């Protein structure tokens, strides 16, 4: 009888420990997921950072779903279905939202092209308005040479 009690207790305690350990594990993952979700009722705060009741509910829901064995993508999809695409702070790199990622690439590409063109054009034509610029340039060069000599 005593032995049975001890075994049951040990199992219970052990079970409790595993439960605690996995809950902590899930919590860690939950915060990571929550950081990339917009709190639907706040302005500009993530589900992770917000203290709003809804944000807390969503966090609890994420833990629940993690415990039920769902993965991150499935949970995010579920929340997108419920609250709309506006909940994703991290825009997917596909579909329409690919546009937000392509924008900066296009801008940087165009800017790089412009800079390259400007730099390549050097030397092809000599200074148009010589005068002062030319003088300043030669003074600069002279100064640089002197500094070099120091």
């Amino acid at each position, binding site marked *: 009888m005593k032995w049975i009690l001890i075994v049951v207790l040990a199992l219970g305690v052990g079970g409790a420990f595993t439960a605690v350990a996995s809950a902590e594990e899930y919590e860690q993952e939950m*915060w990571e997921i929550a*950081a*990339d979700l*917009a709190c639907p009722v706040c*302005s*500009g*705060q*993530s589900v992770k*950072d*917000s*203290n709003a009741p809804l944000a807390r509910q969503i966090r609890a829901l994420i833990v629940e779903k993690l415990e039920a064995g769902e993965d991150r993508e499935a949970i995010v999809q579920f929340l997108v279905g419920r609250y*709309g*695409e*506006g*909940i*994703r*702070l*991290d*825009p997917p790199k596909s579909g*329409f*939202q690919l*546009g*937000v*990622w392509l*924008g*900066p690439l296009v*801008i*940087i590409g165009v*800017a*790089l092209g*412009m*800079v390259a063109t*400007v*730099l390549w*054009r*050097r*030397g*092809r*034509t000599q*200074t*148009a*308005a010589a005068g002062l*610029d030319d*003088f*300043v*340039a*030669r*003074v*600069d*060069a*002279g*100064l*640089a040479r*002197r*500094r*070099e000599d*120091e």
Partner: protein
Amino acid sequence: MLDLGDLGRIALGFAFGGTVYAAVSGALGLRPGASALALSARNALTGVAVLATLALLILMAAFISHDFSLAFVAQNSSRAMPAPLTLAAVWGGQAGSLLVWAWILSVLSAFASWRVRLRAPDLAPHMTAVLAFLLVFFLGVLVFASSPFDELPIVPPDGQGLNPLLWDTAMQIHPPLLTAGYVSFAVPFALAVAALLVGKVDRTWVRTTRGWMLLAWSFQGAGLIIGAWWAYRVLGWGGYWGWDPVENVALVPWLLATAYLHSAMVQERRGMLKTWNIILALSAYVLAIFGTFVVRSGVLTSVHAFATSLLGPLFFGFLGAVTIAAVALVIYRRPILRGESHFESATSREAGFLINNLLLVSIAAATFWGTIFPLVSEIARGAKVAVGAPFYNQVNGPLMLALLALIGIGPMLSWHRTSFRRAVRRFAVPVATAVAVSGLLAGFGLRQGLPLIAFGAVAFVIGAVSIEFVRGAQTYSRHVGVSLAAAARIVMTTNRRRYGGYVVHLGMALIALAIIGTGFFKLEEPVALTRDQPAVVAGYTLTFKELRFSTAPDLTRVDADILITRPDGIIADVVPGRQIHRGWESQPISRVGIDTSWPAMTDLYVLLTAWDESGDSVTVRVIINPLVGYLWIGGLVYFAGVLVVAWPGTPLRRPVDRRRVEALAPRQTSP
């Protein structure tokens, strides 16, 4: 009997009339031989500035005397608020903010008209006319669409009070500073339009504009830093920057101004990049207006919020008109915007500035695009999307890292071209510093590649800036024969633009340090604490001592006394708490407990999230923010650098250089 509302409306009405007069006479005064009208326009603007000041003072008087017959006063203050806070409530709402905006613009316009007349007499009348036109819009909105002097039919006994999140010292300085920043971009804009109208985009233009851009840039920068400081201490989420639309739209003009301040040097020195500089000066203002429009119209929350107030369409129309006029002018004046010389080498100082501009404008454009993308999505397919921190971190992060490295590289490049020998000599020390710091950190067990590179870049910048200071002082002391310390002081004070700029660079390196620390090494953990039971979090020991409840007439408060022992053994305490203001029960305010350690400037940031009514246990959220304090130090250094650059007085003197120029000139000019 006139009350404060009537007086305010009268002052605003006359100010509006005066501005319309200034705009019309300013425009007519541009014809040849009509300079008397131009002079009259300038004088009228001074009068407008006085009237707008009067209107602002009247609104302040209404707040202090709790004149709740004014709707704006009733909505944004209450009898319980202390007097300084009551004054801050002036910018707690839309109409009051607009009045502050118009007031700053009127004072600035009058001041600029008077000052630019001495510096750039050709441009002054055109600039005055442009500023008067801008002012017509803002005063018009105040008079006809959104007045802080509208009266309520029934006077309420008390006002609704100010959102408790704004009950903070930072809120008394952040909004006016940022407004001053936004507004000040009007002067570079007006100067750019003036230069295009006159057809002279010369060195006088670029120099005059630079001064005014510096003003706008430093206001905006100070506004951003103080805003971050407020968010960090008051909002209680452990961060200082969230890539929120309101923050983004304030950052974009600052980035463009930073780009201008650098590329302006290329035009001053080599007569290049004229179109580019004009576009930067114009777009900084257009985007500042866009920022205000976004913040004030609610358009980013939903396209549908746009039409709820008249302000949205008005601002949108203004923005459109200003943009179209600016673009048309640039196209019309293309012929005079051609550069006077060409780039000679990709390893020149001017090429460095070009890449600096590329990076700054790319960050600005990416930020802008991310901010408006939800709007684009809603218009294009009716679905709302969010673009949050992950996007900006991934896109802007690498660009900012490159920019950081360039802060170190740029100043070491020579104009025209940099010889290889010289490059090796100049880069040796900073590169060695960077390698040493990264190596040391790796030796201490830091194994993440990106932070290692980033810390190396900070070390590189600090090394480069220090070397520049030392080299400057050494050269001077050798040539003039004074001690190194004296030479350092003289060099600093005679070439304030350059060395002030280096101080600003140093500030940026410190800010980068804080961003790297919090970006890569932030720790966050919820902790349950029982009275007198120590708990350990990331090397800190926290012991919860006591829970205190207190009530004041208008708020209830709970504070948790927590004793902490830092990893290095120093004992301190933090008191996180919550307070609930009467009338704002749905918005409890976190009182963050912050412990900053020196010299790591690492914060233990403690938030009280739950407590047991008996006072035996509390739950706190503990956040470790490594190096975050360098953000505030960097901000102060940034501002010190700005003061060095902008301090009036000592003219730019270069005793050594002038002698050399004189020695060189006759030989080189006579062939």
